[in-house]
């Protein structure tokens, strides 16, 4: 049974359709990469799954229950989903440790010492042991984004959404963030990533989805999408990415 089912989801902004009938299934432990140009609807789709946006048609199911039902408790849904943003969105007035333990303590009712111990363990595992008491603006972009990932997984979510998490980073810092995502895959975390890192998508994804103009044009295993894309628009997009890299 799939963990997440997206069926016929539409979303409009100011009279423009940004999502046009998206269908997508995500199985437990699966890693799905959304690729496509900026404005193709990748980020909007992730925000809809996390109920940060309300959809205009269709339905999204998590663990077999419809989360887009107006009667559903949005906070209860978000307790089961973690999200990481392009601009990190760490809380600048809190230390790294406070950022990570906020949700476990205030939302999940974990005792302070327990939450802190768990946070320190995660920081340790992802190479940030010395940074627990720093404020976010003292960290590099890569370190901030790794903290943001830890903050999102510290509550043990069923599903992790990553919205172009390396786009704001210096190229030399991208690898350290991709490293942590790879480790999460190894632990069996179910993830949906919107990404521009084609090499990484090819390497880590179980399924790659190509979006253009709010339509999911093609999806399949990375081997097929990247070597023999069926849709001409997918081919054209990958061609442009290749050319851009050669510059």
């Amino acid at each position: 049974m799939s963990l997440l089912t997206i069926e016929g989801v539409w979303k409009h902004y100011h009279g423009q359709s940004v999502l046009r009938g998206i269908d997508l299934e995500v199985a437990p432990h699966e890693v799905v990469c959304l690729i496509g140009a900026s404005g193709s609807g990748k980020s909007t789709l992730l925000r809809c799954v996390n109920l940060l946006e309300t959809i205009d048609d269709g339905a999204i199911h998590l663990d077999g229950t419809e989360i887009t039902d107006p009667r559903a408790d949005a906070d209860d849904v978000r307790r089961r989903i973690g999200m990481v943003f392009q601009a990190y969105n760490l809380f600048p007035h809190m230390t790294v440790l406070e950022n990570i333990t906020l949700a476990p303590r205030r939302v999940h009712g974990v005792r302070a010492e327990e939450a802190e111990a768990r946070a320190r363990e995660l920081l340790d595992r992802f190479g940030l042991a010395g940074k627990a008491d720093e404020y976010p603006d003292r960290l590099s972009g890569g370190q901030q984004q790794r903290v943001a990932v830890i903050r999102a997984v510290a509550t043990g979510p069923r599903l992790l959404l990553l919205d172009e998490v390396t786009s704001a980073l210096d190229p030399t810092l991208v690898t350290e963030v991709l490293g942590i995502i790879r480790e999460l895959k190894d632990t069996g975390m179910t993830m949906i990533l919107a990404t521009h890192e084609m090499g990484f998508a090819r390497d880590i994804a179980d399924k790659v989805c190509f979006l253009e103009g709010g339509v999911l044009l093609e999806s399949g295993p990375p081997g097929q999408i990247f070597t023999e894309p069926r849709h001409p628009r997918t081919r054209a997009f990958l061609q442009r990415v290749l050319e851009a890299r050669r510059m």
Partner: protein
Amino acid sequence: MTDGHAAAPYGPPGWEDDPDRDPAGPGDPPEWVKSERQLRREAELRARGRRSVSIATASTIVVVVALVVGITKSPGWPRVQETFLSPEAFVAALPDVLRGFLLNIKIFLIAEAFILVVGLLVALVRGLRSPVFFPLRALAVLYTDVFRGIPTILLIYLVGFGIPALQLQGAPSDPVTLGIIALVLSYGAYVAEVFRAGIESVHPSQRAAARSLALSHGQTMRYVVLPQAVRRVVPPLLNDFVSLQKDTALVAVLGPLEALRQAYIHASYDFNYTPYLAAALLFIALTVPMARLTDHLAARVARRQAGGGTA
């Protein structure tokens, strides 16, 4: 970038402080000896600095001399000197004016505490989304609109003479209390707007991050939005409090013996206005340090925001 993740090290090693850095690397950074060009540049800058100081000194002297001469040569100067700058009247009035000024400080401190509470509550109520709170929200909007529109002195008259006139059981009749109520109503509206501006200045992505962690609206406000908003509005709040310190003198119209009232009594006793000068000096002594503190904090906030930090 394609294969960059292979064997990813966490963070680039800092070559500056790595003792075993790669011999083929950048090598020892060269020692800095000031060049001729830099020395000439610094000499030129020093000369320019001296020039600016002399110009500033000269122009200040010209302005001060012109003011002193202009005032002391004016036909009414001997009269003004007598009525506003009489040392005897100053010494005679100072103890009473100072005693009155302590009441101003008391009014200020009590009003300030209530103003902060009222302002914050009104700002929070205006941020509530649920339809249940519509009447509260409308009331908050009405409150800020009405009380920012009424001149403070008018409000002091209305509250000071209006509430006792109602002859309600338990309604305060003490002029100090009534004055404080009027000041709180007036300044609470301003401070509510300051808080609201602060709350709205926190980037929506901070709210999105908090909500994505499943924090409720209230928790998001309390733990994420308000702590950042309050820090940002400290300078404008202090600015409002500088003017509140002065406006405590308006309570004088209700009759309590604060600084302005005491000065008025002394002034009308012997027709010498020097006591007003004494009161003015006391107010300046209190507001100037507060204004400097405000500038200092504003500069610190500006520096911090310029110095990076996340969205």
